[in-house]
């Protein structure tokens, strides 16, 4: 792993090619992380993958976390690995929720437990945070980006097949968000199955 000064050097090198792409760094519990600008995430990942001195060519994991109620609330984590030097570095990027506050968005008064499906014919996605897909860079991200979309409702622009992967296609809501309640599913018993269809 790059140590804390090494991480700053790495940041400096990226900044030289992509000014403003790395917003911050963090070195916590021995794990280095670059906090990247979501608009330039592909540039940062490409740089880390291709720069001759670094070549973080293996994406171990792509996952998301909801930092609610902090804003921007969604963090997407890219765990990169350089297998030659056996070094990991995490790239993290924070996305705001366009449905709440922010320019153009209206503040949400209550937290809807189960958001309703959009009417047919209407694009259901303007309310969702968006980021560029890295599937062309790391094909392994295909399933993992679908998983993040499935559970957090984060849209990966340019993903070849961004559909729900683990939940049913007709599921409504983004269950891994922190404001989605645990046990929010209606339970179908024998006596009430008719009511639920």
């Amino acid at each position, binding site marked *: 792993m790059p140590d804390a000064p090494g991480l700053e050097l790495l940041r400096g090198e990226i900044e030289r090619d992509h000014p403003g792409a790395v917003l911050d760094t963090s070195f916590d519990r021995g794990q280095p992380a670059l906090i990247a600008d979501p608009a330039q995430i592909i540039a940062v990942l490409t740089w880390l993958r291709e720069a001759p001195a670094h070549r973080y060519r293996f994406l*171990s*994991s792509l996952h998301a976390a*909801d930092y609610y109620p902090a804003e921007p609330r969604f963090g997407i984590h890219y765990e990169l690995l350089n*297998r030659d030097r056996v070094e*990991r570095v995490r790239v993290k990027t924070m996305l705001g929720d366009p449905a709440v506050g922010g320019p153009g968005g209206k503040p949400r008064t209550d937290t809807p437990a189960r958001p309703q499906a959009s009417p047919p014919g209407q694009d259901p996605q303007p309310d969702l945070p968006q980021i560029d897909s890295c599937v062309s860079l790391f094909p392994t991200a295909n399933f993992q980006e679908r998983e993040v979309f499935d559970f957090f409702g984060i849209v990966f622009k340019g993903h070849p097949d961004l559909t729900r992967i683990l939940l*049913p296609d007709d599921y409504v809501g983004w269950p*891994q968000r922190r404001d989605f309640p645990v046990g929010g599913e209606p339970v179908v018993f024998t006596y009430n199955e008719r009511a639920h269809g």
Partner: protein
Amino acid sequence: MVEPAHGTVLTEDRTTEVMTVNIGPHHPATHGVLRLVTDLEGEMVRECRPVIGYVHTGIEKSCEDKSYWKVIPFVERMDYVSYFFQMEAYCGAVERLIGLEIPPRAKYLRTIFLELNRIHSHLVWLGTTALDLGAISMLWYCFRERDRILDLFEMAAGQRMHTRYFQVGGVIEDIPLGFEEKLRSFVADMPVRVGQYQALLDRNEVFLQRTKGVGIVDRERLLELGVTGPLLRAAGEPWDLRKAFDYLAYPEMDFKIPVGTVGDNYDRYRVRVAEMVESTRIVEQALDALPEGPHIAEDRKYVLPPRSELSTSMESLIHHFKLVTEGFRVAPGEVYYGIESPRGELGCFVLADGSAKPARVHFRDPSFVNLQSFRDMAVDTYVADMICSLGMLDPILGGVDR
């Protein structure tokens, strides 16, 4: 020309018709609840899309509602064949979050149980996959040895599966009297048993024809797809997190990484069988070098005090009560911890928000990621070979769907 009953005449050549066939989700050869939507041209697979999610139970979401120590039994049930690995990934991540060092004896005990679990997992794989290929007797032989491992688990932890043996800080109990003797007899027998499996399969004509040269995916493609574990090693890439990163007692162990050459199904079989022997060696070395001392860390802020102290020490009683009711709190932070599971890199990401419950627990499950390479293995092979490749891929759908 055949004159069918309904009067039409079959003139066109029907051998090139592409037909979409659904396989699963309930099918013995899918090793779990996996559905495959395949486009078949005669017997050839032209396109294959795995459809998953049938056993999704929302474990990651449920974990956010439990205190840290109550999450352990949940995560064990993801990949239900390699439960010790799930526990290690999760407990290791939490230990790194709170900066808790585990005692040497716990490290060695964990190593022993992880490697026993690896053998157990590979035995289940070998038995069921050989069964797919018609070698029914392999299932009984493999499950005979698997039962001895489960007996060992039961002896140490009280349960045969989902043992909840690893705790944050170490292991719940020291190994009981008689465990070492039983383990030693297993360790002495296992290489002989593996030799017997190899005698049955290694040069078996039917097995060779079914596996040699089938399902080849080259190394670069596997790396692009993020495939790790025996699948990657079978393609000739000696990548093993046990060697690469420093965790538990692995740096002190002497073992080899078996690698294949071409990366076909036969290599995958050979790599896993060789790994069983290497795991046996690790267990034996760890048992020989097992240090004395406590089996769990002494930090009472995170670890339950011993039962005997509860009746004599007020502080122990208070800490016991607080740990059991609320659980321990973890300062905000996030950690990713990856270990080598029987199927590849098993990563656990834990986000702490300062409370006694994790704000996010995510598992990077190797079965889930490896499944992406299945299309490359299956397309343009026979249906029967697709089933063989699926077995050799060894996905555990509980881990895929979580």
